[in-house]
């Protein structure tokens, strides 16, 4: 099994990171970001046409990460491919030894840069997890036998800051039933809220990594509150960021992220850090957080 699944099984506090493929084939900067994460995180998510903005393939980047000796978590969304293509790409990932697969619904195309594209959503996050489980059992979704069954470590996402949160929890339960072995959350900034959420889902007995998005500026925080569903940055954090000079933002971002990790360390199984390009700061965040 993957190092990531072994780490979660061991009960250690697990850290994952994230990179986003570029629009184009200038992959140098992205792999430099990944290098900052080497040895600091167990595995690295690779986003799949994030925000519906057309980009280089997630699977292709995952293959390269693997060749570089870094462990990928392949993100797969349901927006762009029907069940034939999704199953086919899952088998393709398995052929390259990519086991960690994060199954998501995906943003609607109207949020991205190809607004006239067709939304597929033939499957949803739950049925995509089912598809991965079915393939592992040696069959495809139509019930036909596979010549060689793949092995996956499937996971999913959940938004603890959604209001109401109960529909998220109902769906989370379905995802576990469909085969999700781990969860990574949308960004959380309220440790108390995360703690309450973890109590509500304790009976599911599944590891949850709290999402950490580095706050880059007070403006970015306000933007997320306005525009990103399921994310709420408390005013105190925005004020804290606003109280320092612009050149100190990076230092503050590290300080806040490290503090959040410390505060949430006891309630969840790890953290998933989404540095949004500030990957170079991840080592100091982790050092400061003491993980």
């Amino acid at each position: 099994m993957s190092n990531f699944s072994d780490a979660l099984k061991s009960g250690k506090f697990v850290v994952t990171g994230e990179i986003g493929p570029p629009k184009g084939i200038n992959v140098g900067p992205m792999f430099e970001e990944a290098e900052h994460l080497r040895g600091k995180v167990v595995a690295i998510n690779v986003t799949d046409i994030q925000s519906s903005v057309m980009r280089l393939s997630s699977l292709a980047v995952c293959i390269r990460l693997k060749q570089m000796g870094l462990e990928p978590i392949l993100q797969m969304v349901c927006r762009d491919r029907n069940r034939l293509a999704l199953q086919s790409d899952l088998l393709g990932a398995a052929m390259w030894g990519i086991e960690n697969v994060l199954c998501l619904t995906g943003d609607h195309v109207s949020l991205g840069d190809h607004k006239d594209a067709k939304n597929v959503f033939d499957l949803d996050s739950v049925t995509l997890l089912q598809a991965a489980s079915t393939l592992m059992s040696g069959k495809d979704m139509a019930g036909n036998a596979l010549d060689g069954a793949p092995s996956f470590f499937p996971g999913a996402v959940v938004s603890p800051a959604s209001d109401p949160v109960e529909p998220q929890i109902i769906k989370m339960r379905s995802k576990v039933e469909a085969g999700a072995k781990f969860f990574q959350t949308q960004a959380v900034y309220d440790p108390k809220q995360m703690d309450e959420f973890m109590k509500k889902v304790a009976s599911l007995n599944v590891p949850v990594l709290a999402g950490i998005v580095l706050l880059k500026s007070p403006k970015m925080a306000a933007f997320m509150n306005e525009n990103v569903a399921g994310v709420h940055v408390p005013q105190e954090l925005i004020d804290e960021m606003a109280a320092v000079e612009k050149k100190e933002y990076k230092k503050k971002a590290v300080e806040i992220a490290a503090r959040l990790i410390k505060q949430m360390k006891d309630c969840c199984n790890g953290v998933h850090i989404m540095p949004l390009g500030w990957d170079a700061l991840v080592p100091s965040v982790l050092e400061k957080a003491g993980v």
Partner: protein
Amino acid sequence: MIIQKQKSFEEILKSLEGEKKVFIFGCADCATACKTGGQPELDEMKKKLEEKGFEVTGTYVLDTACLVGEVRQRGREHQQQIDAADSILMLACGTATQTVFDTLNKLTHPGCESLFIGSVQRLGKYVEKCSACGECILEETGGICPVTRCPKGLMNGPCGGYRNGKCEVNSDQDCAWLLIYDRLKARGKLANIEKIRPAKSNRTAGKARSFVWERK
């Protein structure tokens, strides 16, 4: 009802390029309710076309323009006026346009955009509630269709995109899955959405569909 809007007059004029005489059909059902092809709209279109130098050989509001029998009969009754025209302008939905063209074998121009099967909230405000997918699940989802009212057509609960009860795609639109959740919760039926719904079959929604009664 088929919700529709008239094409712009410029677009209609472009479709009539090179022609001089036109016959106009409307429909007393959806097109009348949407004010695209009732008698007042036909009269107005006639006037505008005449101002542009066209001869309108006749106008008629069909009872139900998607009925082949109705179209055939009214076509016969207006045979001379239709024969005298270069083409028919159809001020009704796309089904009506094709029914007329196919039945009368006369060049028929679409005068409207068919938008969706909709519910009339009031005159001028229409919303889509059903996609005619052929596999109704309203019984389980509290009478709210996620196939239609969730922009992603999700079958197993909401995505993470709702904010203040609204959809990430359109902040004027309620999140369909939150509506389902609220309605089922109020009725003690949350169990309906706690079970996994398998991936939807797309066969019943495949184009082009037809339906023929089986002989008893």
